[in-house]
């Protein structure tokens, strides 16, 4: 028979564990108003840029940031429902409707880098060195070479759809693989399947060591990848942390942060991953 003693002692251990964890959990959930929810694209998180910036922001302002790294599509959706306080995204054409509807305010240009078309060194579709991204996708389609799409309505996916739209093509077929995943997973899939993909340069450089993919097409004006920061409008959503969101917007365009952005990644990759643009005019980029 089971001794009563051992049942009692194990019950006691369980009870103490229960109490301790309740205490620990409630303690860590305190002070909600000092919280800022940042909804952002995976590229800013996966490159490690936010890991470098957020601690500085928290130390400076005393706010605690909850970074939710999702695709730009989801980040904008969270913003337009008042479920985030500030957004850092890279799909200008999808951001503008939120500005005109008044869902977001204080939208500011932060930085840019560029998209590239990466693919296998063998380059079956013969796109290496093409100046036009649209020509490249057209050749990939006509040669039925594998193309891995993000397929997640992220900023990168929106850009890809923009280029297909220019061609008047709705890609489908066995060659067109929709990953439904973040940039890093998509790059890994493209690498494994020896396919092409559209990627932001930052994530590509950060992951390059694990990938069998070369940069094949770059430099087309349509491939510019522009990041804006914007705060969710506290006048429209009463539960939004207005001062916290504004503080983060101002932080991102401050000279200090712009300087960090200009050198971020140089030590690791030899080149910066992003180019600071605060205060510039969007139309002047890439010139």
């Amino acid at each position, binding site marked *: 028979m*089971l001794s009563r003693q051992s049942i009692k002692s194990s019950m006691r251990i369980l009870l103490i564990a229960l109490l301790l*964890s309740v205490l620990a959990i409630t303690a*860590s959930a305190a002070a*909600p108003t000092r919280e800022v929810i940042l909804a952002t694209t995976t590229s800013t998180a996966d490159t490690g840029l936010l890991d470098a910036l957020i601690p500085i922001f928290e130390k400076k302002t005393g706010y605690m940031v909850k970074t939710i790294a999702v695709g730009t599509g989801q980040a904008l959706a969270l913003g337009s429902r008042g479920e985030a306080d500030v957004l850092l995204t890279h799909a200008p054409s999808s951001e503008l409707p939120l500005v005109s509807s008044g869902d977001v305010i204080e939208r500011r240009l932060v930085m840019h880098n560029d998209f590239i078309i990466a693919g296998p060194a063998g380059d079956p579709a013969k796109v290496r060195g093409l100046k036009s991204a649209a020509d490249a996708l057209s050749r990939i389609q006509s040669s039925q070479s594998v193309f891995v799409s993000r397929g997640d309505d992220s900023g990168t996916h929106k850009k890809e759809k923009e280029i297909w739209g220019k061609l008047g093509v709705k890609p489908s077929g066995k060659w067109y693989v929709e990953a439904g995943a973040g940039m890093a997973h998509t790059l890994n899939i493209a690498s494994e399947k020896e396919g092409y993909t559209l990627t932001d340069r930052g994530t590509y450089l950060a992951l390059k060591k694990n990938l069998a993919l070369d940069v094949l097409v770059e430099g087309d004006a349509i491939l510019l990848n522009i990041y804006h920061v914007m705060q969710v409008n506290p006048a429209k959503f009463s539960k939004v942390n207005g001062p916290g969101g504004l503080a983060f917007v101002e932080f991102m365009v401050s000279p200090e942060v712009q300087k960090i952005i200009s050198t971020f990644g140089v030590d690791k990759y030899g080149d910066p991953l992003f180019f600071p643009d605060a205060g510039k005019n969007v139309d002047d980029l890439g010139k």
Partner: protein
Amino acid sequence: MDLIAEGIAQAFWLLMKGDRGVFQIALLTLKVSGLATLISLAIGVPLGTALALGRFRGRDAVASIVNTGMGLPPVVVGLWVSIVLWRYGPLGSLRLMYTPTAMVIAQTLIALPIVAGLTMSGIGQLDPGIRVQILSLGATRWQLIWLLVREARLAILAAVMAGFGRVIAEVGASMMVGGNVVGQTRVLTTATSMEVGRGNFGTAIALSLILMGLTLAITSWLTHLQQKGRPTAQ
């Protein structure tokens, strides 16, 4: 093979130097999944017992729901808990989204049907003769229930292990309602998924080894309790 060796080496290195980040992530994982298991135990055992012993209207319907719930996909739970906890959701004013508490809620919903279902079948499997025997010794209704639960303790501990194993392993719900926020809601599964995303396969393997080690340690402790509780031959 390089990757595996690199991962194992990195796991040792992270543990040896007592990496604070990893330690914090492992601790939060244990807290969240442990608490969720305990709460589901507190609700699931009485519920499972009532379903096994009770004769009430709707019993079969509830039992079917519990059995179906044992296979509830974590992302589905994550989605529904998110909808409820979002700022503009029904419980938004509690400000629980992206907190460990939200993760405990989601994981409790995942573990609860498992604990209740396995408790129900454990008690249901007891020899019906035992009830007659206990009652003939003059036991009250509550004494009877307590003794039956005690008789089914092996099955209930198995339920605890199954529930705990499920929630400590899930990533979908934790990612959605916790958000994988560093230092706040990052647990071993979401951290592993993120490190894979960043191409840091070595770190990801290290984290996965730590997760498996923790799960093994806790399940061994529960198994030990269970085996100690095994009735010895008279």
